[in-house]
């Protein structure tokens, strides 16, 4: 196993409506909905979901709202309640009413709330998507309200800040850009039509459109993708008829991917460390593979997202180069002596990747290959010293160390420990660490980490599947079976084979 799924796949938990508790409904703050399962209240505002193979306690912090149909009224406890009860009255919403009246009111309230929650759940279908327009964007989305509002405000602020920093005046007839936001990765792939592995895209021909998804377990990652893809649109504002070549277009977009916007001060901080990409660069040079600068600039390659990002980060961070790099970027559409290639749509033109080197060297003041080599040396030295800074960065580095061939479990364990020490809050971090430990035979510790992951988010089937394997490894076969069935109940779409199949393979 060991394949880490995009967490957003594991979201809707729908069971047969004929099941007991069919009318109960639980909505989580991140938009997930549990229906068709019996619910009960627990202390501290928590709610217990009763699955056939076990009860799952959902913390109040995750819960938006819920409905428990036919819940018995609380027994009278105060003297006043006891006295009124003797008269055949009960308290409901601050008034003393007959039990029948109370039951009618409860049924009405339940129906109203259920209708509201149903409405909320129905908006996850793209045909019932929300639409909302702001000054520069026309949104269509299926996100929970709170998550959407953060992104909406962020994008407007980003637009303004980028135009200010790069001295761009958007064309007056530009109109609002259509932005499609999806509540999970699967929906993004299905409705957005992107291929597996793509995280977001900007359609740069008319009608222009931006598509990306909300990763509920990693909102920072969602922002990274938003900053990246929106940057492609902002790049177009420099010259709407020009399409930037892969480098520097994708690399600058990645540079802006690591940004932070403070809603209070309205300040956009750019040039942060894009730790996911940094870990890819680090993996390359740990393998002994250092990127050649000329090759990077003249060749179309995936590494524009990784090494290209690091180059832009280096140039934008160095006082000697930042203005020169910005000049290179903004003047590329009108670079002299370079053949422009018509793209056959919307009067768009571009330049070939191999032709980018000339304008780059000219703008950076590099007279010959020797100067280019010297810049490469500086860049490599800079990259070597770039640090990981957050739990998320350590977690990504750990995951890479654990999953790339050949795996480096010793390093991965250290990095996971550092991520945890820095206060990792993503349950997937615990899950991934547990997966590693399980593979290494440390089942007891893995089990503990899976339990911690479940405390953070108890409605991810993958965690129970992990626990099932750990239980099996410890010889607890019945518990393993129960947990694997519970995993399937929680996430009917879990793609792994069942425990029985796993045992068949091992025979």
């Amino acid at each position, binding site marked *: 196993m060991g394949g880490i799924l995009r967490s957003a796949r594991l979201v809707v938990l729908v069971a047969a409506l004929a099941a007991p508790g069919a009318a109960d409904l639980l909505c989580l703050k991140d938009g997930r909905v549990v229906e068709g399962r019996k619910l009960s209240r627990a202390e501290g505002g928590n709610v217990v979901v009763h699955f056939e193979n076990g009860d799952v306690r959902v913390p109040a912090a995750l819960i938006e709202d819920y409905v428990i149909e036919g819940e018995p009224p609380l027994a009278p406890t105060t003297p006043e309640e006891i006295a009124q009860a003797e008269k055949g009255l009960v308290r409901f919403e601050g008034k003393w009413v007959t039990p029948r009246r109370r039951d009618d009111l409860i049924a009405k309230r339940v129906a109203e709330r259920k209708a509201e929650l149903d409405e909320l759940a129905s908006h996850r279908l793209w045909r019932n998507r929300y639409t909302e327009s702001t000054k520069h964007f026309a949104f269509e989305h299926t996100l929970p309200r709170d998550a959407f509002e953060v992104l909406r405000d962020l994008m407007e602020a980003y637009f303004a800040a980028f135009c200010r920093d790069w001295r761009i005046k958007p064309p007056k007839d530009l109109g609002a850009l259509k932005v*499609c936001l999806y509540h999970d990765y699967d929906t993004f792939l299905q*409705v957005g039509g992107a291929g597996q592995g793509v995280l977001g895209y900007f359609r740069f021909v*008319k009608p222009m459109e931006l*598509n990306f998804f909300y990763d509920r377990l990693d909102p920072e990652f969602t922002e990274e993708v938003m900053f990246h893809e929106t940057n492609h649109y902002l790049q177009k504002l420099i010259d709407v008829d020009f399409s930037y070549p892969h480098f520097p277009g994708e690399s600058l977009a990645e540079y802006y991917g690591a940004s932070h916007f403070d809603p209070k001060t309205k300040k956009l901080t750019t040039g942060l460390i894009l730790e996911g990409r940094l870990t890819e660069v680090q993996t390359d040079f*740990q393998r*002994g593979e250092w990127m050649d600068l000329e090759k990077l600039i003249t060749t179309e390659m995936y590494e524009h*997202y990784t090494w290209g990002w690091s180059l832009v980060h280096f140039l934008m961070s160095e006082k000697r180069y930042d203005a020169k790099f910005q000049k290179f970027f903004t003047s590329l559409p009108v670079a002299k002596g370079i053949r422009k290639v018509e793209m056959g749509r919307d009067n768009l033109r571009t330049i070939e990747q191999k032709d980018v080197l000339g304008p780059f060297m000219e703008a950076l003041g590099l007279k010959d290959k020797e100067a280019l080599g010297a810049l490469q040396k500086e860049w490599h030295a800079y990259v070597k010293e770039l640090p990981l800074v957050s739990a998320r960065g350590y977690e990504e580095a750990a995951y890479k160390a654990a999953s790339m*061939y050949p795996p480096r479990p010793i390093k991965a364990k250290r990095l996971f420990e550092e991520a945890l020490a820095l206060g990792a809050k993503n349950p997937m971090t615990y899950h991934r660490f547990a997966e590693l430990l399980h593979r290494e035979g440390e089942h007891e510790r893995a089990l503990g980490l899976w339990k911690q992951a479940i405390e953070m988010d108890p409605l991810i089937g993958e965690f129970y599947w992990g626990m099932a394997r750990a239980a099996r490894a410890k010889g607890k076969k019945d518990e393993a079976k129960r947990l694997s069935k519970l995993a399937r109940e929680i996430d009917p779409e879990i793609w792994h084979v069942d425990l029985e*199949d796993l045992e068949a*393979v091992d025979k």
Partner: protein
Amino acid sequence: MAIPIAALPLALCGPLALFLPAPPAAPPAAPAHPLAQGSGWHQDTDFGFKLKPPRDWTPVPLRIDERWQVLKYLADRPNFYTEKGGYTYQHKPEMLVIAFVDEVVRKKAEVDHKKDAEGDHTVIVLKNPYKDYLDYLKRTHSEGGYYVSDERKEKLNDVEVTCYEIKVEKLTRTGPKRIVAWVFHTPEVDFAVHFEVLENAYDKLERTLLATLRSFQLIPRTSGGLPTGDTLGGPRILIEDQRKLTPEQRKARRVSLEKAAHARARETMPEGWSAFESKHFLVLNHTDEKYARRVAGQADALWEWLETAFAFVGPDEYVRSPVLRICANRDEMSAYYKGSEGWYFVGSSPAEIVSHNDNSGFVGYAVEWVNRQVVMLWFQERDRDLWYAMPSWLEYGLYQVLGTSRTSRNGKLEFKPDDWERDGMRERIREGKAVRPRELLRLVQEDFASGSGETFWGRNKESGAFVRYLLAGPGARGPRSKDLVRDYIKHLRARITEIQAAEDAKKGEKEAKPKTEEEEEAYFKAKSQSWKQRERELVDQAFERTFRGWSDADWDELEKAYFKSVD
């Protein structure tokens, strides 16, 4: 403008990966459906349904390994879509019927760990990739982003029906489309009748589509009955070391696969198709027979040429006789490909080559495609390890030269110069971009394929030109050059054998596990580089052994003659 996730490391696959097609289960994988066509109705007495496809639409055969689709039709006339300020596309409406048999849907992956006379191996049969229609669509639809725009329940002839309207709007290949699918929920099977048409043509086609949907009826299952989880089979993946088998054992498996594929292809042949056998192919034809026989003759001639020119490659190996399917046109070929399973020769996939009549007078890519597939199949079955280990210059060179070969009127295979290759080469020579063969032959895959598309295609032309020079040009007559390709392949094979022997000798040896992070980093670095080093070493060794004793003057002479032949 899209952010990709980095590709998975390829270190676990590569030239020496060993897979062998698993033999089909007995009886053959899936029963053919007794079909009755004519009088406007299509009847399936296995699944027990009938419906009236739109008039003038053409039945499209089901793929040999298809296990979910039970019926496929294509409209005769295309509809058109013009993008604002962009291109005009055409699309032919299509109809599919997909059957979700309850028992099959409930089945899970089945893993069979066998130990028999042929050795210890594991067979994985994947029986249930799809849960229902929407799941099927999610996993198989790849022509644009879609969403269910409407969904309602109806009852038709006492059968519960879920009616889906689906809009395909984003990143579509040929314009926005609409899918109308009705899923008929019958006691043991859910039948999805699915139409996909251009959105702008829907209003015009709506009555036709609805008439077909409303014509759906259940009929008695009077023939073989429904497939079950066992009889339906499923994609079978056999994991074992091919080299442990004898050529006879491999032959027995391939013959079994071949028979099953041929039988299935004939059984599922729709009305209007014809079949004939050529020397090496079972030809299924839906275009004019003269063209089909010419294509088959071409493929046979190329096969014979390979047998003669490379007789030393896997001489004891049996090459399956493929199904050569020639569709009426490109649309039909595309519709045929749209299936639920993979379509490579590896695994248990049938050996099948699909092409069409492109009305290009036998010079177009449709015939070249057949040639290339013949080359790939022949080499893969004769010596898969050798084929996967071929350096790019040789693989692309063979594709280019043999792909563009054509038979003359007397049936002889000819290797006339290819315009694309020759003109491109001349341009590269003029611009000083053409690399010398002694450099081309040293390129590993990363160097060959990296860079711009122009570089890649340029190297394709150079490879084609050089292999052509050696196999069919003046080089084929030169005393030092006439056997160079064959010698090179022999040396390559010899080196592969040495590597395999060395690896076999190491099997069972326990590698020391790194104990510290530093040791781990060093191990990671060494392993990461090992694949590239192995390829580098293979290319260098094959080169050194082939050109041992060649001086710069020898190379100068060869290259001078080669460039002269191109110019």
